[in-house]
């Protein structure tokens, strides 16, 4: 994603030109859809989330401040929060209607991985997995660090350091080239 396109989209958003939506979808749709799916773990729900997120993005377009965050960071925050809210409302409904066990929602770790990600996981070294699990819990499950610590049975301090190292060293650990290669090879 070149910054040129990013800037172009940002100016279209500011002008409230609906071409911005098409361009956003083309450039970020798959990634944001992946984020939504990772949170809600359901195709249909993920589609709802993506649609709601785009409406929010469109509505809040004039509140985007390029000096505070990159466009993707802003899009990610909106999509992630919409997905987490969606999941919570679905769970609340399910709790009331069918009394589904809540623990299913926070089913983390290796057993909770979708098959397509197991492929990536297989190709990642063990040291990467421990960071990834923490990042996923915090990024996609909407957990606080405390909740992640309890759920994953990892001390809070370790959660903090893994988040930090995982996120800061992500580029180094995966290597951009490797990540792209993995994406090309293993993403559906």
């Amino acid at each position: 994603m070149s910054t040129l396109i990013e800037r172009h989209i940002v100016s279209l958003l500011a002008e409230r030109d609906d071409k911005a939506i098409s361009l956003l979808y083309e450039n970020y749709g798959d990634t944001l859809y992946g984020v939504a799916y990772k949170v809600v773990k359901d195709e249909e729900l993920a589609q709802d989330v993506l649609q709601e997120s785009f409406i929010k993005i469109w509505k809040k377009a004039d509140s985007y401040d390029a000096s505070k965050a990159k466009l993707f960071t802003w899009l990610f925050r909106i999509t992630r929060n919409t997905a987490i809210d969606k999941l919570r409302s679905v769970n609340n409904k399910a709790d009331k209607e069918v009394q589904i066990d809540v623990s299913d929602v926070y089913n983390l770790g290796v057993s909770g991985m979708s098959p397509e990600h197991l492929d990536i996981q297989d190709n990642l070294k063990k040291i990467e997995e421990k960071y990834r699990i923490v990042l996923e819990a915090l990024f996609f499950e909407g957990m606080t660090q405390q909740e992640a610590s309890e759920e994953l049975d990892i001390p809070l301090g370790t959660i903090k350091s893994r988040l930090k190292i995982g996120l800061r060293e992500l580029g180094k650990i995966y290597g951009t080239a490797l990540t792209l290669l993995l994406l090309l090879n293993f993403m559906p």
Partner: protein
Amino acid sequence: MKEKVKAFLDSDILEKYLLGDTSKEETLKAERYITMYPEVRETYHELQDNLETFAKMYARKTPEGLKEIIVTSAKKEKMVRRSFYKYAVAASIAIMLFAGSSVFFWNQNKSLQEENTLVTNKIKYLEDNMKNQLEDMRNQFIVLNNPDTKKYAVNGKREGKELKAIAYINPVKKLSYINVSNVPNLPENKCFQMWAEVNGELVNLGVIKQFDEKDKLLALPYADKAVSYITVEPEGGNTSPSVDNIVANINY
């Protein structure tokens, strides 16, 4: 300062800020550090790049047709917003008109209230005045028609030689009046002033004006064996009578 930055980077505020999970205070702190310290700014940029890299790992092909649905609903949203603006403008105009007319009516109400107070006060004043005058008239009537009323002709001497006055005294009703019918001309800097001795003290009854009180009965304070005097005093009246200048006295 470096330690402050290090402590900030060691905390997880920046990571939480990246995800939008910070509290209001933490958000302000994060934004302040990002603005102030290049190393924080650099780390934040790096975190953002890494977040994008990380998120892209989970990219998933969007289903066919979803794009059209999303673009269409966004366009609809734009229309809704437009019509919302139309309604907002209409509502704003309505509010402005309402506010304008409210101010107008409020002002009008206020001035009417002020006028109402003024009229009420005037009526009250007139009423009081009328009552007083009526009471005075009633007393005059009583005095003049009462068989016990005695009539004294008051004749002046010296400068007041031409002064003509009649006093009406009723010892039963304890009322006394005086009618000054003729006031002689005095030098410009002099005037006639009336006094009454009540309980051994001289009370100022005021200056006798030349013309306007000709047919008027002036009430005198009543006391048994009282004495009234008319003196010549400097223009505007005096605070105590000049005994040498007594031009008339009325005993009753």
